[in-house]
């Protein structure tokens, strides 16, 4: 029975600020009422304006950064839902449903992590790396040297908030399709090149979030090399809380979710072990 997380609520929050980043994104900062415990990185919220300017169905966004009861979301503006959010004046209320989903596994220091972000897929990694460096779930703080973030985008303007990631002190490898910044090529090409050149740990654990072709390639690479890999999916969602059955992700029969042919991205994910799900149709 896929129930929403017990701490999830439907709340009215206040928009604190909007900051444009890169060529087509914003960092939206809002304040939740009351005090908010530390939220696990990789979890997400459904957001919408309570007025008629947002589409009726709220949109899912990963928690980008938390400072107490103020939460930030890194949002690529692409359609009516994100446009309505981007046009909200500070001080206005926003409807927030969450925190939702399960988030990243414990990002401990048992072996090094290589995170692969494609464009806006970087959003869940900021808080993930930050929490890992601070020590997650009682695990020891992870050294920044155990982290590599490969951050790919079409062009430099799509490496959103790159400096903030660099300020975390971990190794950040930018990659752009047009070569405008860092490696010339996509994030997966960059991963292969770095690995081939011996500049990555031999047996890293992989994390991925980004466009579907990138996720498919990363999962294939993890399978071929027999590496642990967790993917944060951005499946189209109708509710975020497990009641619409619209966010089905096919499962692998032999995997940990194999008892049923599909998992729910919203309540079983959005982070899945790569070998638990089937990405290709």
């Amino acid at each position, binding site marked *: *029975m896929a129930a*929403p997380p017990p701490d999830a609520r439907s709340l009215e929050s206040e928009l604190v600020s909007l900051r444009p980043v890169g060529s087509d994104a914003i960092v939206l900062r809002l304040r939740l009422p009351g005090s908010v415990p530390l939220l696990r990185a990789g979890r997400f919220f459904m957001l919408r304006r309570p007025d008629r300017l947002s589409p009726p169905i709220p949109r899912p966004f990963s928690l980008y950064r938390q400072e107490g009861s103020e939460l930030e979301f890194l949002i690529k503006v692409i359609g009516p839902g994100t446009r309505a959010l981007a046009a909200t004046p500070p001080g206005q209320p926003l409807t927030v449903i969450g925190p939702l989903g399960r988030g990243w596994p414990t990002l401990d220091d048992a072996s090094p992590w290589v995170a692969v972000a494609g464009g806006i897929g970087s959003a869940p990694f900021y808080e993930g790396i930050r929490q890992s460096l601070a020590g997650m779930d009682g695990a020891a703080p992870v050294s920044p040297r155990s982290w590599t973030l490969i951050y790919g985008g079409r062009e430099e303007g799509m490496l959103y908030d790159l400096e903030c990631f660099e300020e975390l002190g971990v190794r950040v490898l930018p990659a752009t399709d047009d070569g405008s910044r860092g490696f010339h090529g996509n994030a997966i090409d960059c991963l292969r090149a770095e690995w081939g050149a011996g500049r990555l740990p031999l047996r890293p654990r992989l994390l991925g979030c980004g466009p579907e072709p990138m996720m498919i390639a990363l999962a294939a690479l993890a399978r071929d090399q027999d590496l642990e890999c967790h993917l944060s999916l951005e499946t189209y969602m109708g509710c975020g809380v497990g*009641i619409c059955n619209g966010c089905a992700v096919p499962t692998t029969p032999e995997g940990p979710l194999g008892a049923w042919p599909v998992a729910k991205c919203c309540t079983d994910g959005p982070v899945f072990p790569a070998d638990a799900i089937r990405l290709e149709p």
Partner: protein
Amino acid sequence: MVDLSVSLAGLPLANPILSASGTFGHGLEMEGFVPPQALGAWVSKTVTLKPRPGNPMPRIAETRAGFLNSIGLENRGVDAYIEETLPRLAERGARVITNVGGEEVDDFARVTERLTERPEIDAFEVNLSCPNVSGGRLPFSTDPEVAERVLRAVKGVTDKPVLAKLSPNVTRIGEIAQGAEAGGADGLTAVNTVLGLGVDWRTRRPLLNTVVGGYSGSAIHPIALRCAWECLQATGLPVVGCGGIGGPEEALAFLCLGCHAVQVGTASFSDPSLLAGLAARVGALLEELGVETLEEYRGSFQVPQPAPLAARS
């Protein structure tokens, strides 16, 4: 405070607000958002005899005025419902209506038979919009005689109240309602989703994998009201109005027509805690009207009498 209690087909409900099948979980998964007692009754997602994995993605799409879905009745079957869902419903103080489906007339009776003794279940709702495998996959809801057979089969195995949930995708819904009444239905739910289709003009692909799916949400409210109205006129059965309710006003529209209760589906996707406060908001609006009991308001719809036009000289 306005007395919102209502008796639906012999079932006393604290208020007329119900969840709609397939939009609020199987049991009380949503109790973190809506306290069990806040709803007149919790309606389960359709339970079928065998597990059903559902349709391939994409299964849902939002359109400008509504919501398209083709979930394909994904559910783990009646055995899992008995083992996993029902035990969690015990002693929660919630009224439960279990929605049942099937591919053959007999399936409906077999699912109901498995469940009828369960004390957690107060009533059944029969999802007649399921495709009838022996009837060219036309839904059971499209033929009054087939609807009658399904209801007779279900009523043959349970003494609990049974609601027949009708589809709006017919020419004369009143005739289907009469078929369900003849089969022994204790009440009607009007309606399920309206058939629809969405096109992504850019990719030239349908929005749903199944091409055609069920349309719900605000846009279907007037259609649902019209269907409920025809059901009320065609039979003497209590009717549960369903379709496009987003707030207390749309709920009151159904109640004004004479519906005993209402169900809310798609609007819970916009706000999963909407149902927690909806009954109170219905009560507040009735209070504004100076109404003391829901029963006094229910069915107070005033139909204009056609007055003859004044003759012109």
